[in-house]
């Protein structure tokens, strides 16, 4: 996810340079001087290779998207209108079921509980990630060379940790019988932590998952924030200082407006990422206890894989996508508005 977005962000900057570079023997197509004479976007576009080459260049990406994303998506939508349980699955039948799966879901109180839980979980996670990530980003900017290196390394390591491995570590940290957390709480003098079960309720389980997700996501935000901060010129800070602004004011008046696009992109990336976070939630406690920590993707998995209601799970995931699209439409509106302003 994160790698993807970075690639997408850098690509447009690199692209315009390329056409000027290659000195291919094609004089008729490229009248000398045109690129230099018109630095406006229109002039550059004229210098782009024409014919089949652009299509060929994007073909691998489009093709792999179609095979790996579009096809499964279409299949999934079709599946959500069929009846496929264990028996149909093994016998390879898929009778048309109309909107039965959807009506069953929309009339199911459990589904709505899970939806509400997913939204609250996402909101809480993204809020904490953005605040902590930004603070660490600011800290990175202020630190000396060596400490910054140490902190960056620590962040990258947290980021690079495979999810299931980190979940296993967290499970042991919060283990009821042998966990470090219970030991720590006892050592600090808190009572009631002899055999405290941290996964006793859905809320408590989700809080631990939140700690894990935040820990895993903060590096991305912090490092991006730091990268963004390096683009804010020192003279801006100086000017703010001259005007007598304190740290708080400097942040809101200078840093924030400058980094607004960064905050926007990162927040929405995190929304997507947390909303569809599956591994952390499922691996931690399999959606338990008593299905009380299931978010939408886990709900879909439990209904689909564990219970063998494949078509119902497809319907859940289609509804999840619809919800994400609705949420993301706000983002796209903001982006479009910005483009218009420019």
């Amino acid at each position, binding site marked *: 996810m994160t790698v993807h977005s970075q690639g997408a962000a850098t690509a447009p900057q690199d692209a315009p340079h390329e056409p000027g570079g*290659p000195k*291919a023997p094609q004089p008729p197509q490229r009248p000398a001087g045109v690129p230099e004479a018109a630095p406006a976007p229109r002039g550059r576009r004229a210098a782009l290779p024409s014919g089949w*080459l652009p299509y*060929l260049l994007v073909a*691998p990406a489009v093709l792999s998207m179609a095979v790996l994303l579009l096809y499964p998506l279409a299949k999934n939508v079709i599946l959500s209108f069929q009846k496929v*349980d*264990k*028996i149909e*699955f*093994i*016998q*390879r039948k898929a009778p048309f079921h109309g909107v039965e799966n959807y009506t069953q879901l929309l009339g199911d109180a459990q589904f709505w509980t899970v939806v509400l839980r997913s939204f609250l979980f996402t909101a809480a996670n993204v809020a904490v990630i953005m605040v902590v990530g930004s603070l660490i980003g600011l800290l990175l900017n202020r630190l000396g060379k060596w400490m910054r290196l140490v902190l960056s390394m620590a962040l990258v390591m947290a980021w690079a940790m495979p999810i299931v491995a980190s979940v296993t570590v967290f499970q042991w940290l919060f283990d*009821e*019988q042998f966990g470090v957390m219970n030991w720590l709480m006892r050592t600090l003098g808190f009572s009631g932590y002899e*055999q405290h*079960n941290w*996964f*006793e309720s859905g809320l408590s389980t989700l809080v631990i998952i939140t700690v894990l997700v935040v820990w895993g996501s903060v590096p991305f935000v912090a490092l991006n924030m730091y990268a963004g901060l390096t683009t804010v010129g020192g003279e801006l800070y100086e000017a703010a200082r001259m005007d007598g602004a304190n740290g708080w004011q400097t942040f809101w008046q200078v840093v924030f407006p400058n980094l607004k696009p960064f905050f926007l992109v990162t927040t929405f990336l995190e929304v997507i990422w947390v909303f569809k976070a599956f591994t952390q939630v499922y691996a931690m406690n*399999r*959606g*338990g*206890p*008593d*299905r009380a920590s299931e978010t939408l993707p886990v709900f879909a998995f*439990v209904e689909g*894989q*564990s*219970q*063998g209601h494949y078509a119902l799970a497809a319907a859940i995931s289609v509804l999840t996508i619809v919800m994400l699209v609705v949420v993301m439409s706000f983002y796209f509106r903001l982006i479009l508005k910005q483009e218009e302003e420019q």
Partner: protein
Amino acid sequence: MKRKLIAAVGVAGMMAGVAACGNGGDDKGKTDAGGAKEITVWVMDGSAPKAWIDEVNKEFAAKHPGVTVKVEVQAWKGIQEKVTTALSENTPPDVLELGNTQTAGYAVTGGLADLTKDKGGLGADAWPKSMLESAEYEGKLYSAPWYAANRVVVYDKKAFEKAGVTPPKTRDEWIAGLDKLKAADPNTQPIYLPGQSWYVLAGLVWDEGGELAVKDGGKWKGGLGTPQAASAMEFYKKLQSYSTAPKDKDEASPQQSTDVVPKGGVASWIGLGWEAGGAEKALKDAGKEADFGYFPIPGKTADKPGTVFLGGSNLAVAERSKNKELAKEWLALATGKDQMTKYAAEVKGSLLPNQAAANFTPAPGSFAEAMGKAGVNGRITPVTPGWANVETEPNPLKEFMTKVLKGEDPAKAGAEADKEIANRINK
């Protein structure tokens, strides 16, 4: 530049083509390469001792030169999803082990080969009724019973001796003994019993005359909201109060035999033969000596032991197997009297073979001896395809247990569980 690109694309395309060819070739080689056939057998972790299965394969190879048998050991965790997926594929394992509570659930899907006509060749007459029951569905045979096993209480002889406790015969004696153990050493759990050991609870429910689920008219309904289940759960709660084990975990997480018992501080626990063996080995690896004794789970009265869940496995042939006849022959060989006799001996009687003639006389004081005594009162879960759905996680039986252990009213928690059971068992 362009030429290079074209070349690159060409190479990429060729690679894809080559890969595709490779795949096709592989597939053919596996299913039918004239003479060099292979059958795949899935066995569960702890089911098939290597020495025994090697022996079976040797005998099979002698009869069928050129046929190789590939044995793949599977873990119980998440096995239902895995088997379901495997049965839907073109090249499923040819022979596969299925838990006796799950067999009917697969029989109904059409994923298993109908073995009714092969009954004679499989020697079905020798199988006991309790085992045959789980292998059949609607009068047709879908698998061959392999082994059965039940849980007994495993205890630390030294701890029992120190507290002056002898193996109990009744529930009252059992509780009295646990009290003594607790008094003798407060740092030791008299019994390790996690909150979701539902096979143990099943036995207690049957002791009370209750059922996990009953057929009512054409439909099944759960039996946990009943007074019988409530009193069974009451006794379970009493037992569990002697343990510091988590109330929301089953015996496999953490694995009681290898993760908990070897750490010490456990005077007794309820387990299967392979678990006792695993604990012994883990203790040995830790430089300690296991000194286990075994007794059947005590009944309400001294005249008969407590009812136990008769776990076990069947061996089935996949309907989509490409070598069904070979698979059936392997099945007949493995579950036949000769190999079953060797099997029982190899596991020292800790698993009951599928026929009395193959029985192994267990050593006195062994796990197998206690298991044999308890197994007389063995029962299995409801034989209906929907039962497998009940067992899959999140398992309503386990949630029921955790809720009651945390103080919820058994009738209320039971009614909730029954609703979920009815919802799943009738599918």
